């Protein structure tokens, strides 16, 4: 188990390294740089050149890369020129808000998605399945920025039930979480549906039926537990997608998370923030994948034993 864990961690590290390097390259390939944006249209070319030297942007790309990598290894992702603070500090400050949003949305999406998915998957091809698959298609087809604004208009302006935008307490959490949960719930429902449908076709379900168990017992004791295993994997793999959605939802609802921070940082060329945030997202995704594996191993004794088929 231990060497496996070490390997696993090594792989995670590799992935994060790749993520760090990729963002570095993309940002360096982009036209314009921090110096241009920071000084704005008012500056002269000489000012820009001076700042570039000061920031070390005139050094060879590879030197800058090694420098950056060295910093990243010690947790230093550079300083945000806008916030005048360590980028990671700023990001980590915002991170809990994103985590709260993502967790709430995931919880919502899991509840709705699992219920819909199980209802549809236990009778594939029947009316319930068709209706639910229709519903999930619609849920996936509506862009979150659109549904978010619509929810604001409806819940905040027309019904005056919830606050429109902002960060902080639970009331503010409801709308962004719901908006973020809609497509995710649809995704979970679809994964669950096919997983349940697949599992209910397995011979051991027939075995369970042959014992005289009620359909409910067959479903709850045999089918659902086994169908949830792939759902767990898929859900954790799609945490990235959720985080991506959070970027937009945070923007709409002025939720002070990493997503809205990132969007403004991209516009402002605040490299340190962009790099730090993408790396943080990468770490989250990689960690979620690890978590999924651990969870899977807990749920599936075959994986626990290292039996892979």
């Amino acid at each position, binding site marked *: 188990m231990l060497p496996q864990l070490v390997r696993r961690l090594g792989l995670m590290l590799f992935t994060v390294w790749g993520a760090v390097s990729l963002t570095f390259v993309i940002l360096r390939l982009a036209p*314009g740089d921090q110096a241009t944006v920071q000084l704005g249209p008012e500056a002269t070319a000489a000012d820009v050149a001076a700042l570039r030297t000061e920031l070390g942007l005139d050094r060879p790309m590879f030197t800058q890369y090694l420098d950056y990598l060295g910093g990243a290894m010690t947790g230093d992702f550079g300083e945000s020129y806008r916030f005048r603070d360590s980028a990671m500090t700023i990001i980590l400050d915002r991170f809990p808000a994103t985590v709260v949003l993502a967790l709430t949305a995931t919880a919502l999406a899991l509840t709705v998605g699992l219920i819909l998915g199980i209802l549809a998957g236990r009778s594939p091809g029947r009316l319930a399945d068709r209706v639910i698959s229709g519903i999930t298609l619609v849920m996936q087809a509506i862009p979150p920025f659109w549904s978010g604004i619509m929810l604001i208009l409806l819940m905040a302006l027309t019904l005056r039930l919830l606050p429109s935008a902002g960060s902080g307490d639970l009331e503010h959490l409801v709308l962004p979480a719901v908006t973020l949960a809609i497509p995710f719930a649809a995704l979970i429902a679809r994964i669950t549906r096919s997983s349940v449908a697949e599992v209910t076709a397995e011979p051991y379900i027939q075995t369970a039926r042959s014992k005289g168990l009620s359909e409910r017992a067959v479903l709850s004791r045999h089918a659902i537990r086994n169908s949830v295993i792939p759902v767990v994997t898929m859900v954790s793999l799609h945490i990235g997608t959720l985080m991506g959605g959070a970027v937009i939802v945070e923007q709409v609802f002025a939720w*002070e998370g990493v997503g809205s921070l990132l969007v403004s940082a991209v516009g402002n060329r605040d490299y340190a923030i962009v790099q730090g945030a993408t790396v943080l997202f990468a770490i989250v995704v990689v960690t979620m994948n690890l978590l999924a594996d651990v969870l899977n191993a807990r749920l599936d004794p075959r994986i626990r034993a290292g039996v892979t088929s």
Partner: protein
Amino acid sequence: MRSRRHTAIAVTALLGLFATTACGAGSADGGGATGGGEIAVAGQFPTESIDPNGALAIDGGTRVASLQLYSPLLETVGPGEFDGKAAESWEINDTATEFTFTLRDGITFSDGSPITGQDVAASFERTVAADSPFSANFVDVGVQATDDTVTFTPAAPDPALLAKLTGVMITPAEATEDSYLDKPVTSGPFTVESFTPGGDLVMVPNDRYWGEKPTLDRVTIRSIPEVAARVTALETGELDIIWGISDDQVTQLNGNTEVQVVSATGSAVTTMWMNASTPALAKAEVRRALWQAVDFDKKIKALYPESGEPADSVIAPTVFGYAPQEPVTYDPDAAKQALVDAGFDFDTTLRFHFSQAQFRQWVKSVVSDLAAIGVKAEALEKEQAVYTEDLLSLNWDINIQQVGTLGLDASYNLGRLYTCAAERTGYCNPELDRMLKLAGTAVDPAERQAAYADATELIWNEAVGMYPMFVKNLFATRASVSGFEPDVEGLPRFDTVSVDE
């Protein structure tokens, strides 16, 4: 502090406790019966830094915060007119090379330490040293200080220095960048209760402020980037004052009796330079004809009925140096004829650069007006950094930006951007250089005013750019808010605001 707050959110959310706080920090009564009260306000830009003299000094969010939190030496109250803030009085020598300010007696920072001349000098030096956008204003300006005076000595005569100094906010001499990350010591009417970079800034009155103290107990500046969300929040009462709204929203808000709209003239002018170094645009006749070909009045009425006002000068009326000009009237036929006469090549496609989404509608409608007389123009929306690079390298034919005048003195705008050396507009005229130099160095205000008037007339007639519109800032407030009055630069001030429940 900041992280503790977020942990608290996390814990509450995870426990699933449904707190029933009434509409956020909105107009909840602060509890005080006399005056007091709390307001929440929001614009479109997040407050990322509250360092008044740092790199973000003129960034929307930072600037609004600085005005509430800090005091400058003096502030502009009208074109060429100033009021002392931290400075009680000032003296200027005959050559405009020495400016001596005497500070008010017994004034202190929010922590109770006295504000000294050294503090002012240090603030000034930080402004110059930091990559602050203000630093370009202060080339070769020396500074000396005593406990209660501070003296600025520009190497060359700089009659506009007073105006420029209105931007320098006073912070303690020992302040560093890190001082602004948490709860900085302030010198203005408000001080910081809590601040999340990019998030909420909560301000409470500064008890040690020497001037008139704010009536409000608490002001929260929030960032709500989505305009629809911002307007909704105002209508639901979650916010009390908003800005960064468009004219179409004003139409919408006008129907709401709980809301009132306030507009404030700033110094911004919609400026569309035409690159005179482009062969097709080299002739002033051509540039003038293009200007004539666009029906700006109609656009302003349609698109900016509330915030726009047809411009009659290169700089706004609030700015020192303003001189009204003969408006350019829309006449497409004359324009077309003028172009034909000037031998304009109708096959050229003019590259019309812009970078901000707010200009989209405007640019597109200008392009369609030009198309109507057969001039091909291509709207090119540029990514911000690319736009800036292109702008500096004159890699455009027409561009659009809102040009403001910091400190409300034409030297900031005309004096810096229109000289041959600046190479910003593509237009170079030694005559103009001469006028601007005179305007920038003459000690006598009347002489300066006259020189700027000449320069403005030249720029206007030569059509270095099109100057279609003065831009007013739009605010909307709840009806319960009174005393809200933006300053001469069109920026919000909350120290005079009160709220009744």
